[in-house]
């Protein structure tokens, strides 16, 4: 996006963060395809290389993917939301309570849950914009608050199950060849892509992320744009909660614990600057895919299966990957600017000699 027009097209496409990430993703997929696919005793192909496994990856990555999509505009405005995972848990148990215990019809319960998500996002937005508090600490507070409310509501132990088949369709069936939740995910992705890349508001998010004071002097209502991204995140977290509940067929207070980490990792891996102002939805989608393939692919490697350590390996590698992605972008930036300085000084010496 920010490449100057003077660069040739092939260069600006090749050296983009997204292109490199796509390359990594393809290599990663190929690696698991080769080493994670085996045939079992009856001669059937099992493991990574089956279509079912690919659908599984898609199905398992929808919730974290939705949270990552919701976080992209927030991080573009140089904010952060640590509470999305907890909000997913709160929305899941509230939906379970409404649909199961209170006997609301599923569509009404779902609508109320979405409303709750937006309202919870509104709490974050209100504290951040009207009182001008740092998003990090506000959402750290609501991270604890939302999870605590979920635990208080279920008294730490109640699990809501027995949802109607019509609702479970959302999380467990296929429609037009793909898992149903994948359609929802792609719909939300398209919506957020349009918002971020094809609207005035999206441009404003970056401006706010780059220079909030400057944005204000340019006549943007900074508060309103910031509030919008947090309310949107709450809404999307509620959608993720519905999908989560439908996929597992149960709603518990610990739903979505730790999801915020994977979501933030996906966004940062996707090339969005944590300092705001720079990034893309496409990058986030690639980041989500890279993490999802890693997580599910590891579980198909015979070595990892023998060690029974898929989840630990995935967490460890995700953490390391995140640090490498951050350090890599920083180091390459430093090297590039050092190289440019060298070239400039070389040119100056050359011209002074002449």
């Amino acid at each position, binding site marked *: 996006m920010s490449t100057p027009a003077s660069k040739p097209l092939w260069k600006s496409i090749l050296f983009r963060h997204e292109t490199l990430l796509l390359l990594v993703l393809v290599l990663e997929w190929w690696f698991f395809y080769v080493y994670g696919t085996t045939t079992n005793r009856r001669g059937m192909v099992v493991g990574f290389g089956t279509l079912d496994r690919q659908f599984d990856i898609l199905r398992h990555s929808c919730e974290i993917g939705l949270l990552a999509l919701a976080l992209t505009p927030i991080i573009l405005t140089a904010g952060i939301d640590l509470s999305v995972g907890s909000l997913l848990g709160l929305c899941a148990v509230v939906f379970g309570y409404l649909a199961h215990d209170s006997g609301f019809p599923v569509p009404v319960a779902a609508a109320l849950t979405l409303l709750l998500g937006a309202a919870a996002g509104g709490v974050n937005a209100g504290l951040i914009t009207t009182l001008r508090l740092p998003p990090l600490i506000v959402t750290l507070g609501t991270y604890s608050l939302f999870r605590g409310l979920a635990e208080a509501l279920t008294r730490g132990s109640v699990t809501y199950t027995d949802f109607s088949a019509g609702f479970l369709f959302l999380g467990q069936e296929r429609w037009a060849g793909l898992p149903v939740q994948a359609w929802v995910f792609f719909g939300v992705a398209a919506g957020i892509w349009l918002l971020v890349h094809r609207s005035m508001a999206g441009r404003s998010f970056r401006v706010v992320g780059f220079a909030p004071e400057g944005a204000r002097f340019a006549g943007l209502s900074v508060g309103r744009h910031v509030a919008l991204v947090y309310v949107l995140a709450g809404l999307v977290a509620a959608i993720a909660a519905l999908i989560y509940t439908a996929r597992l067929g149960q709603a518990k207070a610990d739903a979505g614990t730790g999801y915020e980490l994977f979501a933030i990792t996906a966004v940062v891996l996707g090339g969005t600057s944590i300092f705001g102002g720079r990034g893309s939805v496409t990058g986030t989608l690639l980041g989500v895919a890279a993490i999802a393939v890693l997580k599910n692919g590891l579980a198909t490697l015979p070595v990892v299966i023998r060690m029974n350590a898929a*989840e630990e390996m995935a967490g460890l590698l995700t953490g390391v990957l995140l640090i490498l992605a*951050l350090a890599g972008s920083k180091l390459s930036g430093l090297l590039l600017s050092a190289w440019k300085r060298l070239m400039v000084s070389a040119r100056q010496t050359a011209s002074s000699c002449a």
Partner: protein
Amino acid sequence: MKRYFRELSVLGVLGLLLALLAWRAPDFYQPQPLLSLLTREAPSLVVACGMALVIMTRQIDISVGSQFSVCSVVAGVLAAKGVPLYGVLPLAVALGSVLGAMNGVLVAGLGLPSIVVTLATMVALRQALNLVRQGEFVNLPDGLQWLGQNQSVGQMILLGFALLVLVCLAWALRNLAAGRHVYAVGSDAESARLAGIRPQRVTFRAFLLLGALTGLAAVMNIVQSPQVQPLSGMGLELKVIAAAVVGGVAISGGRGTLWGVLAGLLLLACVSPAMIHLRIEAYWEKAIQGGIILLAVVAEGFRNRRSTLF
């Protein structure tokens, strides 16, 4: 008076809570349970002091819980292998320092955002521990518990240790050049640099110190029970950050005192026993703690409404 308004208001709230308990639930004030409560919080106080320093330099470290678990398990394994306490303690502190230095290099050296770096190290350390230990408990030898003393003497020693750390750090922050540098870097790193301070070095040292204190706290924690639970540090980061924020350490850096942190930690620590004595269901604990953090932040927000950038 006005300068320490935040600290005094936290003390006021703590006093109110204690008065409420004295009125409604005098059982709370039995000496032995109260002493146990304070001893349980002693390791958290040590970590909270280090965390306050890191927050004062305008950074944050959410990996302390994982560092704590790693140090606890390693210290436990060493003790179980027969290493005596005076060997375990420095080794745990050294390990904590290494983990803290790792964060410090990434944050101060490379200039990466501390929240994301420590988010990554939090998960990486936690999962590495799970990978190696598979959640196994460590049984400690007999001589280790309560530092080899009887329980009440051991509790007194631990409390004394925590208070010593608090007093030394509070004194250093106020009176030593190194302490003033922490405030200077947190208020405005660029001005501090122009004044001849090296902000990156100060930040690195804050992370290093936090790691070392976390190692110390891990040992102070394992001597309190016959086993080491690998999950013992879960959620510690939230607790100590909350204590610091409630106690008036500004998340935007450059402001706060360790006495405020002590008051904040005591307030948060009293919530859960107070809930038991006041017959509120324990499931509300997390929500109430989140509410207290938000209240503290909101109070902060009203105070400097105009000064913060947006």
